[in-house]
């Protein structure tokens, strides 16, 4: 086991190095540069060159790359071109909001999606199964900003029971009131994000329940005279969970994609919105920082799920 874990972690480190290298060069492959994007009718060529120098973009790419690596080793993600503040500070300001949004979304999505998937796998072909399938596929194909805006229009404007955007109301700090205020601001973004991920959980779980239900040990359980519900929830669901757990780890990366759109529509102060703005300004340090944090979380999640799966299913280790 120890050998497997060491191997897995080493692999993770290599993946991380490749990712940050790719990130560094990909952001620089964008056409134009942050200084040119700032050009306006009053700016001269000399000032553009000055800006490039300030951003450190006048040096050869390879020099920039090594100084980026050097700083990264020191834990320094650099200074944002536009905001002139350390990227670490900026990310740390946004990350808690995104984590809050994602954790709650993940949790509710799993809590709703897995039982739904198990039950509709069990009732395969029934009306219930068909409805769940249709709703899940509708959710996956819906255009996120449209859904977000429609929800805002209905609950924020028409019914006026939920706030229009933001993460909390200015002036309310601390205490239960703050907690409830934050919760109220979370409802619509969470529902919107859920629409994208619910289908994954439902369909994965449903699929593996269907597979598992045809296994021999299920037949054994049934032949022992066990009640059908107990067979389903106790014997089948546990084994059917393995692929679902694996996807949960991978979902982190995909969630950020949804967060970019959701946080923008809901004016939510998270990492997604920060990435959106940094792309349009070509703020390389912020983009690099954001992708490093993302890569790191996906890699760590993967290592954890791999180890977890190896623990659950001894066959994996042997391969």
């Amino acid at each position: 086991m120890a050998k497997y874990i060491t191997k897995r972690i080493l692999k993770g480190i290599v993946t991380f190095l490749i990712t940050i290298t790719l990130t560094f060069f990909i952001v620089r492959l964008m056409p134009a540069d942050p200084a040119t994007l700032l050009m306006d009718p009053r700016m001269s060529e000399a000032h553009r060159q000055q800006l490039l120098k300030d951003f450190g973009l006048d040096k050869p790419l390879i020099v920039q790359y090594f100084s980026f690596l050097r700083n990264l080793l020191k834990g320094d993600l650099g200074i944002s071109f536009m905001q002139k503040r350390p990227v670490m500070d900026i990310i740390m300001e946004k990350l808690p909001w995104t984590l809050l949004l994602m954790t709650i979304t993940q949790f509710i999505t799993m809590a709703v999606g897995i039982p739904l998937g198990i039950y509709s796998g069990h009732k395969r072909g029934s009306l219930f199964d068909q409805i769940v399938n249709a709703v899940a596929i509708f959710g996956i194909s819906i255009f996120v900003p449209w859904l977000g805006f429609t929800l805002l229009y209905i609950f924020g404007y028409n019914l006026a029971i939920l706030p229009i955007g933001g993460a909390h109301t200015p002036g309310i700090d601390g205490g239960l009131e703050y907690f409830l205020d934050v919760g109220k601001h979370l409802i619509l973004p969470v529902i919107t994000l859920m629409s994208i991920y619910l289908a994954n959980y439902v369909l994965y779980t449903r699929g593996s329940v269907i597979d598992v239900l045809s296994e021999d040990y299920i037949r054994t359980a049934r032949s022992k005279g066990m009640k059908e519900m107990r067979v389903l929830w106790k014997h089948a669901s546990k084994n059917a969970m393995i692929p679902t757990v694996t996807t949960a780890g991978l979902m982190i990366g995909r969630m950020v994609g949804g967060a970019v759109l959701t946080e923008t529509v809901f004016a939510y102060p998270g990492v997604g919105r920060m990435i959106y703005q940094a792309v349009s300004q070509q703020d390389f340090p912020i983009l690099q920082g954001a992708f490093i944090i993302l890569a790191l979380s996906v890699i760590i999640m993967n290592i954890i799920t791999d180890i977890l799966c190896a623990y659950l299913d001894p066959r994996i280790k042997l391969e």
Partner: protein
Amino acid sequence: MKRILIIVLCLTLILSTFVGCSKSDEAGANNQGNEVKNGEQTSESSKFGGTITIGTYADPDTLNPLTGNDIAGSWILNLIYPKLMKLDENGNKVPYIIEEPEISEDGLTVTVTLKDGLKWQDGTPITSKDIDFTYRVLYEQKLQWQYEVLNNITWETPDDKTIVFRLQEPFPTFITTIGYWQRIVPAHIWSEIDDIKNYANENPVGFGPFKLTEYERGQYYILERVDEFFLSPEGKPYLEKVIFKPYPDINTMVLALKSGDIDVTAKEIPATAAKEFEGSSEFNVVQNQDLGYEHLAINLRDPLLKDVNIRTAMAMAIDRSQIVNFAFDGAAEEMPGIISPVYQKYQIGNYFPSYDVEGAKKILADAGYKDTDNDGILNAPNGENLSFKVMFANSITAHEKVSRILVDNMKAIGIELIPEPMDKSLQTDKLYNTGDWQLTINTWGAIDDVESSMATLFLSTASLNWMGYNNPVADDAMLKMKSAITEEETMNFMDIFQKEITKDIPDIPLVVKKNNFAYNNKFEGFVKLPSILEGIINPTSLSQVYIRK
């Protein structure tokens, strides 16, 4: 089974908190409403009191007034840091914290005197030393484009209220340009800062109708009024608080305005939304003019486009009224010359050829362009089709609509246009770096001080002259226009310049955009200034806005 029970339990718990909070927060929202109403009650005897919440599109890039470079930032920073000059309702630069500047007869000395009794928000008087310090730092550290305005200019501060600039050659728009674009910072605070360029300025101390008291990036910026502000009719601003809230999605911002989450937008709203607000009894809509304009620039290095006959025919084929009505929903003004109609003084009858399809066809026919292969597109003598790619940024919906109108317009005279939507950074790259383009639809954000700014756009050596325009007569006129002292001289060179450029047509101005701003009509007293930079959210305006009784 136990695990599932736990999950279900957690789910119920979470859901119950959410239901709980929607109730209690409804009460919260009501409380807020009461606060506003209380404000109104206390202001029964006067206009004082209340809060205004303003929607913007983003956070300020930085709170550092010396390096801040975006519009979202300028709305906030201009309320808390002063400039020597400000804009008036007609787009003229007028004194803000100074008296009318005195320019010597030879145009080489500019004397600026500060208004009496102005103090920074920490109580220290504002002096000419602050201006001296700010301009010195700007120039030495090349903080912003405007440092170049100070090239070859020296200055001294004979006393605390006066600063005298000495120029090597006349530059009449010197003080309006630097005065309007450069914010002043208190020297006693900023001289202590080591790295001004990378200074975040988390706790700004400045001068203006409001001061920044609390903020959370991505969420809100709360400003409170100062006790004394000279532009306010009754000595200090009526509103107690100003709150800025960023909404990156314009539709969400419009919805927030409709629902009362915000009271006014600093950013312009789409014409369709403006129409909806106009029909409502709760809102007022005002419209201002942009200082820049929308234009079709032409790459003069292109073998076909370098023929002035093609450019003239293209200029004659464009139906600007269609662009106004369909691309901008009526919120724009046709632009017949090279100087925006905002600047009335320079509308002296030198216009680009006007809309005339038959005339355009004749010019092309006379120049030898015929449809030799009967494909509906004219051919050059060498057989090449008159077919051009027109690029535009795919994020700008209006430009996409303009491109479609231009395709139709050009088709009518036998020229094929191929629209090429692309990312703004790719378009920028083609214009500034690779030069691989034929036609482009663009916007100039703000063209002010046209006497000097034409040279930054059209001078043969200017970096923004991507068209590759090179006309020595026009060059000479642009440079002389910049340094002309008398009105007569300026007009003379302006006339020469306009005649040359409308003859050569390196660039076809299309329309000047009008921006719509909507506000809840319980507020009154907004002052509307031109350009998207100012709109109705500027120090002059907010120092006199109040809540109607």
